[in-house]
C-alpha cells in the first residue's frame, strides 16, 4: 500500500505538467501507468476466469446433486423415501412402485427399498402341525412312510381336545394393509435392513398358534371331517385376531386348512371311512327297497279297488240287464211255465255238452241200482318209456 502511495506521489508533478499542456513530457511519463493497467487487467482476467470455473463447478455441483437424487425401483421391489428419518408419503401411497423416482440426496432423504414377491401375493404356511416332508415330496404330493411312533422333534402334530393326535396346517394368504407398521415395526433378528421378513415371521407364529390353540378345543373327528367348517372358521378368526392384536399391518385374504390322520393310523382311519360309506350304502339300498315295496303295494291297492269297482259295475249292470230280460221272459214263462223250463234246460244242456271237454255217459243199471263210479283225481303222470 505504501508502494502504491509512493508511486502515486512521485507522479504527481508529471500529472500537473500534463495539465499544463506539454505533450513531450506526457509521453515520457506514460510508461508507469500502462504497466499498472496491464497487471490489474491480468489479475482481473485471472479472477474472472477463476470465478467462471467456480461458477461452472457450482453449476456442475447443482446438476450432480439433482441427478444423484434420481433412483430406480425394480419390478420386484418397492421403495420408501425417508426425509430426516421420517417416511414421506407421496400422494396416497407410502410405497413407490417400479420406475424412475427422485429424492433429495443424503443426508436429507434416504431411499429404503423393500423386496417383494413377483406376483405380489404373500403367503405363510404353519409349520408345527405337519409331518416332515421333503420339498420333493411336497411337490410330488407323496408322503413319507410312517413308523410306529411319532417323533415330535421331526414330525409336527397337534393334540386334539379328546387327546388324540392329528396333523393340521393352515396356509395364509395376506396383503400388507399398513406398510408403515409392517415395515418399520417388525425386525428380523439382527438384520437392520428393511423388509417384510419380520412381519412374515410374526404372522407365521400367529398361524402356528392358531392351529395349535384351535385343535386343542376340537375333537379329532370334528377336525378331520370339519363338515360345518367350524374348525376352519375358528383358525381363520384366531389368525385375524392375532394379526390385529399384534398390529402387524396385514390383512388376511384367505386361510386354507388341511388336516389328516397320523400316517401310522391311515389304514384304520380308511376302514372307518369305508365302514361309514358302507353304512350309507346299506341305508340307501334299504330306502330303495322301501320305495319298491311301497310302490308295489300302492299298485296292488289300486288294482284291488279298481277290480272291485269293475266287478261292482259289471254286477250291477248284469243284474239290471237280467232284470230287464226277466221282465221280458216273464210273459212267456207265465204262458206255459213247464214248457218254457224244458226248452230252456234243453238249450242250456246243448250249450254245455258242446263246451265241456270230457263227457261221460253212465247208463243206469238194469236193476235200477245206482252204479258205483271210481274217479282217480290225481293221476300219476305216465312215464315216457311206457308210452
Amino acid at each position: 500500500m505504501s508502494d502504491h502511495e509512493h508511486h502515486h506521489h512521485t507522479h504527481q508533478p508529471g500529472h500537473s505538467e500534463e495539465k499544463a499542456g506539454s505533450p513531450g513530457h506526457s509521453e515520457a511519463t506514460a510508461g508507469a501507468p500502462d504497466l499498472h493497467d496491464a497487471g490489474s487487467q491480468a489479475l482481473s482476467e485471472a479472477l474472472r476466469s477463476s470465478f467462471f470455473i467456480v461458477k461452472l463447478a457450482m453449476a456442475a455441483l447443482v446438476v450432480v446433486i439433482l441427478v444423484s437424487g434420481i433412483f430406480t425401483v425394480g419390478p420386484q421391489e418397492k421403495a420408501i423415501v425417508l426425509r430426516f428419518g421420517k417416511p414421506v408419503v407421496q400422494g396416497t401411497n407410502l410405497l413407490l412402485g417400479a420406475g424412475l423416482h427422485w429424492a433429495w440426496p443424503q443426508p436429507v432423504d434416504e431411499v429404503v427399498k423393500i423386496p417383494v414377491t413377483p406376483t405380489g401375493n404373500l403367503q405363510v404356511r404353519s409349520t408345527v402341525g405337519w409331518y416332515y416332508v421333503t420339498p420333493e415330496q411336497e411337490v410330488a404330493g407323496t408322503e413319507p412312510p410312517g413308523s410306529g411312533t411319532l417323533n415330535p422333534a421331526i414330525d409336527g402334530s397337534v393334540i386334539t381336545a379328546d387327546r388324540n393326535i392329528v396333523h393340521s396346517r393352515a396356509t395364509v394368504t395376506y396383503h400388507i394393509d399398513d406398510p408403515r407398521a409392517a415395515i418399520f415395526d417388525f425386525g428380523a433378528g439382527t438384520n437392520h435392513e428393511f423388509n417384510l421378513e419380520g412381519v412374515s415371521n410374526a404372522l407365521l407364529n400367529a398361524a402356528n398358534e392358531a392351529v395349535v390353540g384351535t385343535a386343542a378345543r376340537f375333537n379329532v373327528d370334528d377336525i378331520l371331517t370339519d363338515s360345518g367348517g367350524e374348525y376352519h372358521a375358528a383358525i381363520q378368526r384366531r389368525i385375524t385376531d392375532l394379526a390385529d392384536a399384534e398390529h402387524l399391518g396385514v390383512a388376511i385374504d384367505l386361510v386354507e386348512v388341511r388336516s389328516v390322520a397320523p400316517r401310522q393310523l391311515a389304514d384304520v382311519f380308511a376302514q372307518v371311512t369305508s365302514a361309514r360309506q358302507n353304512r350309507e350304502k346299506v341305508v340307501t339300498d334299504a330306502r330303495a327297497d322301501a320305495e319298491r315295496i311301497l310302490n308295489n303295494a300302492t299298485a296292488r291297492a289300486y288294482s284291488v279297488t279298481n277290480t272291485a269297482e269293475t266287478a261292482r259295475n259289471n254286477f250291477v249292470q248284469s243284474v239290471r240287464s237280467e232284470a230287464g230280460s226277466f221282465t221280458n221272459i216273464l210273459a212267456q214263462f207265465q204262458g206255459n211255465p213247464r214248457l218254457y223250463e224244458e226248452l230252456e234246460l234243453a238249450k242250456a244242456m246243448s250249450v254245455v255238452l258242446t263246451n265241456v271237454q270230457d263227457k261221460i255217459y253212465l247208463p243206469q243199471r238194469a236193476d235200477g241200482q245206482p252204479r258205483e263210479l271210481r274217479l282217480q283225481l290225481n293221476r300219476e303222470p305216465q312215464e315216457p318209456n311206457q308210452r
Partner: protein
Amino acid sequence: MKKNAVTIAIAALLLVIFALLLFTFQVRQSEVVVVATFGKPTDTKNEPGLYFKWPWPVQNLYRFDQRVQTFEDKFSECYLADHSLVLASVYIGWRISDAKAFYPKFQGGSIEAAQRQLEGMLRTAKLQAFGSNSLANLVTTDPAQFRFEQIEQNIQAGVQRQLDEHDYGIKVEFLGFKKIALPEKVTDSVFERMKAERNQYITKAQSDGDRQAAMIKSSAERQAADLLNNAEATAKRIEGEGNAEAAKTLPVFQQNPDLAIFLLQLEAMKSSLNQKATLIFDERTPPFDLFRNLPAANSSPTQ
C-alpha cells in the same frame, strides 16, 4: 462487491452444511437413539426426525433397532399339575422400550444377548405356568376349563415381571404357543387308543347301518300292509255298494221267484261247465232222458 457477496454466500452455505453435519443427527423411523454427554446417557430420541447435538467428544450417539423382534424358545418338556408331560415351544415378540436402560445391560446393545437373557426368563415363566395347570386346561372342548390363552398371558406376565424387576428396558409385545406335542414314548399308547376307538366306530357304523335299514324296510312293509288293508276294505265297501245297488232290482225278480231261481240255476250251470270240465251223466239227465224211452237200453258208456 457482487463477487464478494457470492463468495461469502458460498462460504456461509458450506459453513452451515458443515455445522449441520456436526451439530445435528437424524433418527430413523425404526430407531431409537440414546444421546450420551461425556459418556453418560442424558437423552433418548425415539421419534423420527432431525435433532440437535453437541459434536464429539461432548456428546456420543447410540442407535438401537426399535422394531419388534420375534424369537422362540427351545421345544422342551414341561410337567403339568396333573403330572402329564408335554413338549412345548413358545414364541415371543419383544422390543426395546427404554433404550437408556437397555444399552448398559447388554454389551453394545446386542439383540442376541437380550434374547439369550429373555430365553432364560421365558423358561422360568413357562414352567411356572404349566405347573399350575393340568392337561384339561390345555386341551378340552369345555370352554369353562379351557385356559389356553390365559396360560399364554400368564407366561407373558411372568416374563415381563422379571424384565421389569431388573429394569432391562424391554417390553414383551406378544407371546403365544408355537407348538405343543406329546413325547414320542406317549404317542405309541395314544395311537393304540385311537386304533381301538376307530374299531369301535367301524362296528358301530356296521350295526347302525343294519338297524337303520331294518327300520326303513319294516316301516315300508307296515305302510304297504296298511295300503292293502285299506284297499281291501274299500273293495268290500264297493262290493257292498254293488249289492245294495243290485238289491234295488229285487222287486222285479219277486214277481216270479220260481222263474228267477230257474234262470239263475241255468246260468250257474252254463258258467260252471266250461270247456275243461268233465260231465258225467246218465239217462236221467236231460236231454238224455230221451234214452229211457228206447226199446233196448244196453248201450255201453260213451267217453
